[in-house]
């Protein structure tokens, strides 16, 4: 006969094992970032020898050097500029389209919508080759606008899908009232539909912002000029080239790249969880 004490001990042990498991995995998630920041505060001399977790002296000048000498200030502004432009573009273009797909009748509506959706399913791994050719022909390669348009396109299908699903479930009464008051279609989209869609717009904004900030391959093939590059490409190119052994600068550059995304993530964490689970359930 097993006693209550037996079950109690067993439960405590199981709980302890669960916590140890969760905490150790959580530590492996955070530790590399911690080590990145630590390494960014060491010097060229100490970084290869000093394996202490907290450096003896904090060399913040690495950040100054990365921003100035490594031109990470410029790359950082480039990344901000691309991210903001693309996200604004996606929000406007995809919400206009999603609203029309949800509310209006016009010939070919379903066909066009399904073409957008098919693009989410069909992988074309070599598309960047053709995209490179296309941008060359349009004289948009090595330009900011070329990259921005490409990235708007990347986020379009998913954003349209999320927004249309939301509009489909949204009650029409408010829009009807606005129409009776003489509001135009564009006015209703702008003043009624968009404000009501804020929760799903937050998901669209966060996911596309993460995606653009972290994007690598299109930026790699589109930009030749250093001064146009975003952070991700600059990191990879600089430190495979001239900075290859300057680890403190590399780590400072990585920190500069990672910190904004972590802050945005922590602030908008709710929407990310929502987006992942929603996207998964519909996907």
């Amino acid at each position, binding site marked *: 006969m097993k006693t209550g004490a037996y079950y109690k001990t067993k439960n405590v042990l199981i709980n302890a094992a669960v916590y140890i498991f*969760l905490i150790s995995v959580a530590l492996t998630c955070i530790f590399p970032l911690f080590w990145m920041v630590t390494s960014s505060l060491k010097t060229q001399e100490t970084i290869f020898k000093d394996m202490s977790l907290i450096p003896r002296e904090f060399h913040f000048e690495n950040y100054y050097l990365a921003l100035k000498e490594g031109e990470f200030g410029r790359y950082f502004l480039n990344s901000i500029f691309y991210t903001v432009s693309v996200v604004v573009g996606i929000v406007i273009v995809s919400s206009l389209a999603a609203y029309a797909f949800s509310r209006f009748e016009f010939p070919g509506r379903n066909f066009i919508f399904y073409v957008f959706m098919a*693009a989410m399913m069909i*992988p074309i791994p070599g598309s960047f*080759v053709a995209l490179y050719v296309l941008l060359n022909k349009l004289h948009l390669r090595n330009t900011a606008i070329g990259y921005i348009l490409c990235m708007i*396109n990347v986020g379009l299908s998913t954003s349209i899908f999320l927004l249309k699903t939301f509009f489909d479930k949204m009650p029409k009464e408010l829009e009807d009232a606005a129409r009776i008051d003489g509001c135009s279609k564009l006015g209703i989209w702008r003043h009624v539909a968009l404000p009501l869609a804020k929760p799903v717009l937050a998901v669209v904004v966060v996911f596309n912002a993460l995606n653009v900030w*972290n994007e690598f391959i299109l930026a790699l093939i589109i930009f030749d000029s250093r001064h146009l590059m975003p952070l991700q490409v600059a990191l990879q190119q600089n430190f495979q080239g001239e900075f290859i052994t300057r680890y403190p600068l590399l*780590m400072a550059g990585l920190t500069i790249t990672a910190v904004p995304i972590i802050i945005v993530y922590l602030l908008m964490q709710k929407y*990310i969880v929502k987006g*992942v*689970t929603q996207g998964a359930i519909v996907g």
Partner: protein
Amino acid sequence: MKIKSTLENYLFVLPAVTIFTIFYIIPFVWVFQLGLTDWDGILPTKHFVGITNFQEIFFQDPIWWQSMLNAGYITLIALTFQNALAFLLAWACDREIRMKNWFKVIFFIPPVLSEVVVGLVWQWILNGNYGLLNYWLVRLGFPNLVHNWLSDPNTALTTVAIIHSWKGFGWGFLIFLAGLQTIPRELYEAAHVDGANAWHSFRKITMPLMVPVIVLVAILTVLGTMQAFVLIIAMTGGGPAYHTQVPVLRILASMRGSSRFGYACAQGITFGVVLIIISFIQYRFSKRAKA
């Protein structure tokens, strides 16, 4: 009036359709056209060479198939190790525990980081001479385990696969957890009253109800992992020799390295077809699992 209204409706979708046509549909068609040529990407002339590119891929490009195998190997590790880890963590979190939200936040940090950041940070930790991992292995008394993790052909691919799993398990974790939370608690309570232990409940309640979610995560894992390559650029660049090459890296090498745009497109098509076949098989499999 009717016509004007319809035109107005089209104006709403016009920006999206224009961008999509120029930057998705046209490149999509071009990939197929260019795949049948020997174009080098520079000269204005290109010759139609039929299926020559595909013949070369199939019969004269062992590195391509090696890279396909490598991607398959990484995918296998992601499917087993990464997803098992994600499932176990989700299962551990699907109960009354303290700090649950903290774990949820932390486990999704690697997925929000870029592959370049993750690759370069881990490359530094795994560095053969100055890396922290080897330093600790020596300190903890395992000097025989010290490796040049990323430049030793025996360990490079597995190391890359494990870092890929580290970066990706958070996705599976969140989806599994959402799935687990839809299972009604009453089922477990009823089973408990009937004398089922935790293992029985897991086998008879959790697993059957989670099959669709598991299949979904598996499909997402395969499609995502087969096409992963930025992490590899940041960690090994495809080396040592060709030990961590993957298909998308080969496409990039054909395009930028050897300036064979036609061949790169043919490789892209081949790989795209392989991916579609794999997802179709998985889809059929999931239908059977549901039935």
